[in-house]
């Protein structure tokens, strides 16, 4: 299959999650929704369930306003809106971590707003590296497993988890390889996003199979030329209108530090005797993320290092409106970029955005700076 056809397949999955949900349900599978930013998907998968991402959508907010004040990010607002409106009907449960204040509120509101889909909390420790932190991570996993069994009847086994970990580690590797190949391949920002977005709506083994072929096709295909190379950072970068602006202005995403994209695939589950211990170790090993305690602000250095490693001309910060963790990180990122001689652009994004004219002007002006 040619690269174009593979991308079309992923575009189809990325743009029609409902169809994917119905497909899995028709196959007799049970689906578990997973909220941003990290959830133990390997565990869910190992219990024979299909984890599907819930990152909201570019829809109008009506019903969720009864639960959230206006200053909660639109990812939470629209996820709840879709839940209330029945878009997730058929899903057996939703796992919501409490990694930011708005996520804590999403879980609490979910219980009353979407009563037909049980809320399963995943409580991660911020002090995740010491042994006591890992132990607490495992207590969080035990809670998720128990709640999943209650919600779906599915059983957990360490043997099955070990197998799922292999599936996920392979997917991670393939996605990391894709990110590297896409840095130079002739692929649009929109198509690049389709590859990441579709992963949230497909079983990892299915997604791996397609992306593997895509990687081969991209490697053999033409390279991008004459583009402005940028590293994109933020929570989400899936707005078709915004990605179109990138593509129309010759802005090429050569790497990302986006929570919805590469942040998911950086860290593998290590090879350890006990797979649950290994899962807790994976969480302990994770970093360079605004939602994970980072006293040395390693994320900031990581962005600069990756921008340089990928020969980026500049950094584009896609700031999800009302995401205070990201807003706190912005100032150190801005300063580090300036110190490293990297130009940067900060575009505020929102799932409620209708008019992208201002963003287009900003991107055009940014391009002219080079």
């Amino acid at each position: 299959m040619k690269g174009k056809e593979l991308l079309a397949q992923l575009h189809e999955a990325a743009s029609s999650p409902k169809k994917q949900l119905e497909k899995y349900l028709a196959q007799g599978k049970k689906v578990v929704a997973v909220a941003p930013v990290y959830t133990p998907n390997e565990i869910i998968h190992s219990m024979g369930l299909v984890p599907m991402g819930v990152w909201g959508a570019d829809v109008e907010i009506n019903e969720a306003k009864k639960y959230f004040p206006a200053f909660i990010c639109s990812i939470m607002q629209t996820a709840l809106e879709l839940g209330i409106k029945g878009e997730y009907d058929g899903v057996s449960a939703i796992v919501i971590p409490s990694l930011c204040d708005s996520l804590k509120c999403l879980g609490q509101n979910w219980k009353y707003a979407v009563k037909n889909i049980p809320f399963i909390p995943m409580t991660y420790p911020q002090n995740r590296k010491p042994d006591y932190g890992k132990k607490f991570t495992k207590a969080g996993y035990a809670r998720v497993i128990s709640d999943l069994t209650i919600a779906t009847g599915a059983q957990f086994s360490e043997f099955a988890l070990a197998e799922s970990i292999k599936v996920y580690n392979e997917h991670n590797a393939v996605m990391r390889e894709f990110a590297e190949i896409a840095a130079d391949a002739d692929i649009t920002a929109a198509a690049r996003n389709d590859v990441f977005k579709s992963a949230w709506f497909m079983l990892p083994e299915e997604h791996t199979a397609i992306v593997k072929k895509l990687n081969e096709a991209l490697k053999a295909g033409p390279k991008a030329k004459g583009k402005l190379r940028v590293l994109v950072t933020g929570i989400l970068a899936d707005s078709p209108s915004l990605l179109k602006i990138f593509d129309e202005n010759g802005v090429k995403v050569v790497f990302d530090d986006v929570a919805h994209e590469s942040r998911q695939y950086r860290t593998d589950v290590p090879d350890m005797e006990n797979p649950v211990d290994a899962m807790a170790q994976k969480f302990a090993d994770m970093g360079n993320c605004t939602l994970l305690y980072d006293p040395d602000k390693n994320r900031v250095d990581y962005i600069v290092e990756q921008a340089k490693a990928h020969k980026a001309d500049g950094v584009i910060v896609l700031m999800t409106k009302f995401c205070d963790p990201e807003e706190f990180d912005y100032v150190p990122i801005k300063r580090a970029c300036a110190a490293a001689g990297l130009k940067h652009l900060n575009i505020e994004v929102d799932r409620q955005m209708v008019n992208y004219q201002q963003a287009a002007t900003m991107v055009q002006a940014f391009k002219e700076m080079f």
Partner: protein
Amino acid sequence: MAEEVKKSRPAPDPNSAKFKLGQIAAKAYSDAMEAKKRGEKIGWCASNFPVEIPATLGLYVCYPENQAAGIAARGGGERMCNVSEGDGYSNDICAYARISLAYAKLKEAPEQDMPMPDFMLCCNNICNCMIKWYENIAKELNIPMIMIDIPFNPDYEVSDAETEYIKAQFWDAIHQLEEITGKKWTDEQFKKVMEYSGRASRAWIEATSQAKYVPSPFNGFDLLNHMAVMVTARGTAQAGDAMETLLKEYIDNHEKGVSTFRAEEKYRIMFEGIACWPWLRVTSTGLKSRGINMVTTIYADAFGFIYDDFDGMCRAYANVPNCMNLEHSRDKRVKLCRENHVEGLLVHTNRSCKLWSGFMPEMSRQIGEACGIPVTSFDGDQADPRNFSEAQYDTRVQGLMEIMEANKGGNE
């Protein structure tokens, strides 16, 4: 020009609770200043960080949230927020954090100075925003950050796993602080601090519960000021003494039929949320002028840190507002409403606090239903004066009052 006539205020009674509490709050800053001058290492501390730890170690700490509230109440909130926004911080970020980040840069504020820190003591049991705020200051000032993670509890009770996790972090924090400051933890001193904290907590709970009387012997806005001592100094003998004085005054007030609420108490409400410090007078007057007394807030319950041992202390710090699930948070408020004969709930939808406001619409609906009382909200901010509209506040309070009046049968 007419000669200015200044009303001379009577000298404060040094034996009054107000004086004692004011002294403790002021002394916390001056003591830290002096310690810094002596060359001692001082910390900036999150408001719900276990104060027992620095108190037992004999460390001087300052509270940026308390400072930010003070700066905002004295009119400096917007100026300080502008400094942070000028540096690139979004105006969506908590205004306490914006003020604090500005102070970390300017190192002075005429409204309330405090010494610069040598270490940061963070605890996220009130919000995860604290983590990012303290991370940035620690990095900017190149000082160590000690982080006690008390995760939001999705369950009603604190689990053994959580208690164990918190306990391990407490000891980790103690050992880190011993290393940083050279001070030593002793169990004897901890016992003393635990007793002081228990004494202050019991008196505080008892004092605030005097609102069970109708009319209440105090104006609930008093609590917003007095609680500063419970936040910052409850591990001291002085705090216990001042809180017991407060309790005695409230009992005396009730017996004499007087109150610090200087108006006829026609209606009794619970106020939900942090005060609008820049608009304290306006928000207070808007209630008082209508005979509405704010008789209780969750703070009445929040600072009752009563426990018997180290494990109990760990659990107590997981049972603070903003760390509890909706049902537990709701039940605590329903209890306060019932015990204090509350007739209405006024909710501050606080632009600075996503966690406090993020599930408040649903929770306040449930409180209203459980207690059979009207619920009204207004938009405001704990420290940024730009996020409050006096007209909206007035309209909402008027509406609340009219429903409370109708419920009394007054509009029939």
